[in-house]
């Protein structure tokens, strides 16, 4: 469970003004629920995710997290390019208090990057890197998974296993998925909120949120 308690966050813009991402937002992301957050590009969806992950502090307000919150899925910025895949995994395993050998095994099994595991990450192709990052996120059993858009990586077989493994993880975890794609939200989420102009509004059902979002986008296009 993640709770935003009166959270505000804004950024200074290039022209000296301030842009609000969140204005005094209070919201619960209950345990076990798959929540989608829709928002137009630039509304601050990724920032919201970083706030929830705790990698960025709110300006005011508090964020309570119960359980282990993931870093944004498939995000490779946490890895050190000069260290090998194995060393990076050992680092993560230590951070999260897991068995490093078991974690390396499970990532090798999942990504089939066997030989590459001992090469520095800076030598990985972008496809390999994406696989590695996804495998690493899945190897840790988080209580809350944070996903910034769903990107498909690898060949069909890898995608198939990714989907199956991710679904399996989600069975006992909650999900916070930010996306500007309503289809993604509809296929994965139980409920939905919209982030726009500093307001985070929750809707009872996904359909209501999608209708409202379509309406908003229509207005924005006009």
């Amino acid at each position, binding site marked *: 469970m993640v*709770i935003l*308690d009166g959270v505000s966050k804004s950024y200074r813009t290039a022209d000296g003004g301030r842009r609000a991402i969140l204005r005094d937002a*209070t*919201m*619960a*992301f*209950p345990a*076990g*629920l*798959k*929540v989608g957050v829709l928002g137009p590009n630039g509304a601050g969806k990724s920032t919201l995710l*970083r706030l929830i*992950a*705790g*990698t*960025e*502090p709110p300006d005011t307000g508090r964020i*309570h997290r*119960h359980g282990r*919150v*993931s*870093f944004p899925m498939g*995000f490779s*910025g*946490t*890895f*050190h390019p*000069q*260290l090998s895949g194995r*060393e990076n995994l*050992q*680092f*993560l395993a*230590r*951070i*999260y*208090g897991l068995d490093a050998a078991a974690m390396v095994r499970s990532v090798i099994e999942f990504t089939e990057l066997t030989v590459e595991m001992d090469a520095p990450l800076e030598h990985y192709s972008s496809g390999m890197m994406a696989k590695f990052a996804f495998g690493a996120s899945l190897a840790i059993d988080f209580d809350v998974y944070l996903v910034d858009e769903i990107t498909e990586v690898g060949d*069909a*077989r890898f*995608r*198939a*296993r*990714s*989907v*199956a493994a991710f*679904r399996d993880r989600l069975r006992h975890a909650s999900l916070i998925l930010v996306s500007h794609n*309503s*289809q*993604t939200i*509809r*296929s*994965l989420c*139980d*409920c939905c*909120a919209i982030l726009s102009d500093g307001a985070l509004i*929750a809707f*009872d*059902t996904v*359909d209501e949120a999608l209708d409202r979002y379509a309406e908003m986008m229509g207005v924005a296009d006009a």
Partner: protein
Amino acid sequence: MEQNARQPSQLAAIAAAIEACLPAQAAALLERWRDPPAAKALVACLLLDQRAALPALLTTPALDRAGLAAALNELGLASDDTEPDLIAALLAAAQDPAAEVPRVHFASLILVAGRHRLAEGLLLPAWQGAASSAMVARALSGTWMLLGREAQALEAARIAAEAAPQQPELLEHLAGLLLRAGQPGPALLAAGRAIGASADSHQGWRLVSSGLLELGDTAEAIAAANRAARLSGLHQPHAEQIRTAHAAERPLVNAAERPVAQAPLPEVSFRAPPQPGWARVPDDLELPPPPPLGRAIATRARIIDALMLRETRTMFSNSRLGYAWALFEPLSHVLLLSAVFLFLGHDSRPPIGDSMLTFYMTGVLSFLFFAHLTERAMDLSAANRSLLLVPAVGLFDVLAAKSVLSAMTDLVVAALTFALLIVFGVGQLPADSASMIACYLVLFLLAFGIACVNMVLSSYSSAWDKLWPSFLRLQYFTCGVFYHPLDMPEDIRGLILLNPLVHVTEWMRQAYYGGYESPFLDVSYLLQWTIGSLIAGTALFAATARQMRRPA
């Protein structure tokens, strides 16, 4: 007459050659065909995609419906009720051979008549691989499916779905093929997208159900099957079947709840039911108590340990000389100082002990320990910032790991340097090891407090990154590395003694040289500085940690 008798077989022969995948022979047959009836020639040209010949044939006066019907009959395509449609489609396709819609329409009618290869032949000219339109790709996918070419069919289905991702039918088709190909995961994804594109895609729910069944997720599979059955009666049998097949696996609370035959089973939702007001923060929310101190400390220790390991592996990775330099740095200071003072013609007798080398060394090592620790803490470079993207890692952890690692490195270097001096016969073991350890401990705490301050200041202004090293250089001259406070005139000495590092140097020398009792060492003054720097450092740190945790 004889020729007439052979004529009917000519078109059939061309079709047969096409179906045998011998297009060259089919074309040769058409070429050798003397005076074909216009209708049959039109069909043959269309099947062989000889577009140039079509306009002339279409304007031939001899072309009539009866002739076309005969041609289609010859191929066994037309029955009484499909004939008008087929002829219309044929003419539309022939009139505009480049247009996809009439071509696909005609091909589908031929497909329905069971001549799969002919349909494929008609569709292939419009096929442009990955750039094909959704309609052509979908039609070819279906055709290939019927021809048993599942891999090709799957590829075409994928292209179709990509070309028009809003059409649930294309996604359903793709999901079906993926299921057949034994890929339930991607099939689920495609079916999910179909449902996303159209919420009442019963076929989508049916495919989700099959996919989940394949993945062994019986409860959700039943729920999806029920959903499909509710949307369309078509799927009633499927739902019925998997409900009975897996009835045994359904958890039953007690025998009384055992479902009665025919009674509708309670719906197991594929997702959580809608929860109105799910986002409301409960009023009676009880925050969990913070973890017990012991566990909190163990967690921090584990994280700092992991950070140190990572830092160790990357500390000197930029240059191979890094390690060598770390070992050689104190010696280089000592040798340089010796050379300079020798050159200046100074008295070569040290103020304390027998050797200038050990005298310098006792000052340099503690100074470098302090300088390294306070400098390294400021280096929150990109690689270090990325550490902060792991939510469990805090800024304080990074600072602690860097400090401990820096201290440990300098201690090892110090030990090795002293060992080297002893080997060359100019040094000895410290006379009072316990006192030296205590001195290092106090020095570490002092440096750590100042490192905290530095980290905060350098995150606010990069000027501090340049100011601090020059400040350290000043320290080098005021902390007594290469002289003894007694060598200084009294008023200057008073100023120098305000520097806490002089007391560190004095303490080091007192611990190292057996007989030396420093006249100036004021441990309580040094401790005041240490405690002061720790309080200032942690207070500044706590006040600004929020702002400092910005990604670069």
